[in-house]
């Protein structure tokens, strides 16, 4: 019995942007902002799904219900993905809420470690060591 056959692909060269299109336009889908006042062009903080968020203080009187709920959740560190799950809000909406809270210095963001150009063997070894304990 012969399995079906695939053709290997090569890493894609960075395609030059199409003329007449701004960066980010085209293939990348737009995000929907429903709950917040932010516009599509509003600046958003650089947040990853696994950026850890920690509240710096209790919710002020002026906080919206969404902000208050979010602040209540991240008394202990929580990833953006977990906040999205517990709040039952799309990831992009949570990043907008977090941008507001970061600007107001109500939360702290602990940046994720991303795959870098330079290999980080000690990080990989730490993960392997942790997995072995499972």
């Amino acid at each position: 019995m012969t399995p079906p056959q695939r053709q290997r692909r090569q890493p894609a060269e960075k395609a030059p942007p199409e003329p007449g299109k701004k960066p980010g336009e085209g293939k990348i889908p737009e995000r929907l902002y429903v709950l917040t006042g932010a516009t599509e062009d509003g600046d958003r903080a650089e947040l990853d799904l696994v950026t850890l968020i920690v509240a710096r203080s209790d919710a002020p009187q002026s906080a919206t219900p969404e902000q208050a709920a979010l602040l209540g959740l991240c008394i202990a560190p929580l990833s953006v993905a977990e906040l999205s799950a517990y709040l039952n809000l799309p990831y992009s909406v949570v990043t907008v809420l977090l941008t507001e809270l970061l600007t107001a210095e109500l939360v702290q963001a602990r940046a994720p470690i991303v795959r870098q150009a330079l290999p980080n063997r000690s990080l990989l070894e730490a993960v392997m060591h942790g997995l072995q304990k499972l």
Partner: protein
Amino acid sequence: MDFKSSDTITGPRTEDHLPHTAQAAVKIVIVGGFGVGKTTMVGSVSEIRPLTTEETMTQAGVGVDDNYGSDTKTATTVAMDFGRISITDQLVLYLFGTPGQERFWFLWNGLFEGALGAVVLIDTRRLEVSFDVIGRLEERGVPFVIAVNSFPDGPHYPVEDLRTALDLSPDVPIIECDARRRASSRDVLMTLMRFLHSLAMTGSLT
């Protein structure tokens, strides 16, 4: 998607709280065709009950006259299941898998870019459903391993036949697993980590 102050937000259980010393997180993405066991694998190794995050995306209709404007856009919700493993008091590993349509994951900004690597879960009964996702990982230069989720009624191909069929380079690990079992899923993750480590040693990890 109404959000009222009266809504009860159910947060993490006390035992699911990360310690305050948690400083950083890394992620691994588990990919594969529909129904191949991605969510099962996430659930079998996660220390928390798997959670779901979602993103709403709009795509302009293709080949549709501009006169229709925004009405031609279609909104799609992409949901991802994920789990968590505390590595140390400082470091947390997140695992993402999704039951959704594969092409949408690659529109999810940053999902693969920051990931350590990916596990491609395959079902030998439907090998071809993984072809596109493997190709997309290759195009993006995301390192990956192949995990063959063993189904009793699936054909059993020798590893080298699978390597040929999937047109994989000789260094890409292929491992059989049972995604329902924690130890087996852990071994898949270990295989990925050893592969990433070997890439780092040879300086070919980009």
